[in-house]
């Protein structure tokens, strides 16, 4: 009986393994990516392809280099690539995407030992790295559907949050922004990163993930609720200075952040209690940066900063022990 396997119990396993989970997240991202492609056209496809391929390539390259088994099959590199693409402007030049992929895969993930060991969300590390290193490229937003008009000045738009910040900065009131159209950001007809424009598509993906039990409702719901309540209070106090809460929820990167970036299993707390604490922290930092900070958008920074707090949160919020109270 030499070809018999002997292991510790249990002897059966759930079929839901890591590649399966990664596949589900990728499926959930598809609607958001499709909306991006619909509004930004061919450049969006290019960014998605380059980013995904570059991430896979860098993973293989690194693992070859250090002599680790190659793990691209688990789909995490592909997912990181897709997430990174969705966080970049559709018109990003190819080299920007490749640099981002390198930062994500190597600095964000593999120097820490690969999937499961990284404290920060790799895609966000790359995004923030690019945002600070190449601010011009990273804030040159393509206008939605501009590729159809076939004009050279396709790159001139601004994100709703950017426009809001400018309005407050230049005129001291939100009135300068105009009226808060909620339908366009809901559907995706706004400027912004490739994948963050349509709240609807991201919401669909998020609901799919929750339904599939890949993510729990705790992070997205607490995150969005915190942003809504916080901005709502500010708006009630001074509607001249602050935009309505629903606008803050729908416009910008909150949806993709709450459903896809903050919920990254590796870099979020492990218990549900911890997830709520984490998400509230993300929400507060996001709003603080959006309302009073120098950057119009704070989701990436907020999640990265809270990523750093995860070990502490995990320590403080262990599960309640069975039989502790009798």
């Amino acid at each position: 009986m030499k070809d018999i396997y002997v292991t510790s119990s249990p002897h059966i396993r759930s079929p839901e393994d890591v590649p399966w989970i990664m596949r589900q997240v990728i499926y959930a991202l598809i609607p958001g990516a499709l909306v991006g492609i619909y509004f930004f056209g061919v450049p969006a496809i290019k960014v998605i392809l380059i980013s995904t391929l570059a991430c896979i390539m860098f993973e293989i390259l690194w693992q070859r280099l250090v002599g680790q088994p190659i793990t691209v099959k688990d789909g995490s590199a592909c997912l990181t690539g897709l997430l990174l693409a969705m966080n970049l402007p559709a018109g990003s030049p190819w080299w920007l995407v490749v640099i981002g992929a390198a930062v994500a895969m190597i600095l964000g993930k593999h120097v820490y030992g690969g999937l499961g060991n990284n404290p920060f969300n790799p895609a966000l590390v790359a995004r923030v790295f690019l945002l600070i290193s190449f601010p011009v490229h990273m804030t040159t937003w393509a206008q939605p559907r501009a590729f159809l008009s076939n004009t050279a000045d396709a790159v001139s738009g601004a994100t709703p949050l950017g426009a809001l910040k400018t309005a407050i900065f230049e005129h001291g009131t939100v009135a300068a922004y105009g009226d808060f159209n909620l339908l366009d950001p809901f559907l995706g007809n706004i400027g912004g990163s490739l994948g963050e424009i349509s709240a609807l598509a991201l919401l669909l993906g998020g609901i799919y993930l929750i339904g599939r039990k890949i993510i729990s409702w705790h992070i997205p719901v607490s995150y969005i609720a915190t942003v809504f309540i916080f901005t709502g209070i500010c708006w009630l106090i001074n509607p001249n200075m602050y935009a309505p809460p629903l606008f803050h929820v729908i416009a910008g990167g909150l949806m993709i952040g709450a459903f896809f970036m903050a919920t990254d299993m590796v870099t979020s707390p492990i218990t549900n209690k911890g997830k709520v604490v984490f998400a509230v922290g993300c929400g507060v930092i996001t709003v603080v940066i959006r309302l009073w900070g120098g950057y119009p958008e704070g989701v990436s920074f907020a999640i990265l900063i809270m990523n750093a707090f995860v070990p502490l949160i995990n320590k403080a919020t262990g599960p309640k022990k069975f039989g502790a109270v009798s």
Partner: protein
Amino acid sequence: MINAVILVGGIGFVAALILGISAVTFAVKMDPREKAVLDQLPGANCGACGFAGCAAFAHELTQNENAEMACPAVNEEALQAISDVLCRELGGGTPMIAFVGCKGTPEKSITRFSYVGPHDCRAAQIVAGGAKACQYGCLGLGSCVDVCPFDAIHMGEDSLPHVDDLKCTGCGKCVDTCPREIIRLVPANANYCVSCISRDSAKDMKAYCQVGCIKCRICENTCPFDAIVVVDGNAAIINQEKCRKCGLCVSVCPTGVIEQLHVQAKAYIIEEKCRGCSICAQVCPVDAISGKPKEPYVIDQGKCVGCGLCIEKCPADAVERLSI
């Protein structure tokens, strides 16, 4: 200018005053020797001395008059330095090194099943007692390698751990880690060790291992110095104090389970000094020395095993080791 001098001097003086006062008020007694001793210890905090790290051991050495040198990793120089600091002689003990008592490579020693699980011997041992058919054999997952603080053990291509004599300090961490107690400490100058600890009989062993000690006692009968014994069903054990490193046991062992750690330098006879007394030829356990009486004797380098008996017995100091 003068202001500056006065000011800086003044601040310095005031600060010195305050520090001086608080040094007295908040004084904590600390033996200055402790630091001196600590500087001499290796600082690897391996815990082989039985204390929580080098600092704790340094504390023990200075505070306890009777504390012996329990650190296996200090060298002669450091030992002398510590003795000087403490003003008492510290016994060093014989330097030891780790020795792996198993030669059961996957080809020579069969496995019972395929193990899947953590890559750790101690973890593998709890699943049906480990995959190796021999209950005494090396599992080959390298827990000893991971635990070595001196990078002195490495897994060889034969899936067995190998000790680097030069790096091994004999701290014994690997000995504690090995779930099958295969690794043991032997004197660093030991030359021959038995690479098997199996208590199974030759009959049982035949089924799963070709390189185990089969308790045939040939080595016991061959050893000219009674240094090797097979007792109570244990594998052969070499008494390192009695062993004269002749290596005869290696040559007679039918399974080749006795390992030679160092190459012994062979002996040769200095012609001018030899008086041809024939004592060397008589004591040689391998009959490597021949010659005619009153004429210089010759050592057959092919036969000599470097035991050194002749060197010891020669009345004329005519035998020496070849330098290697």
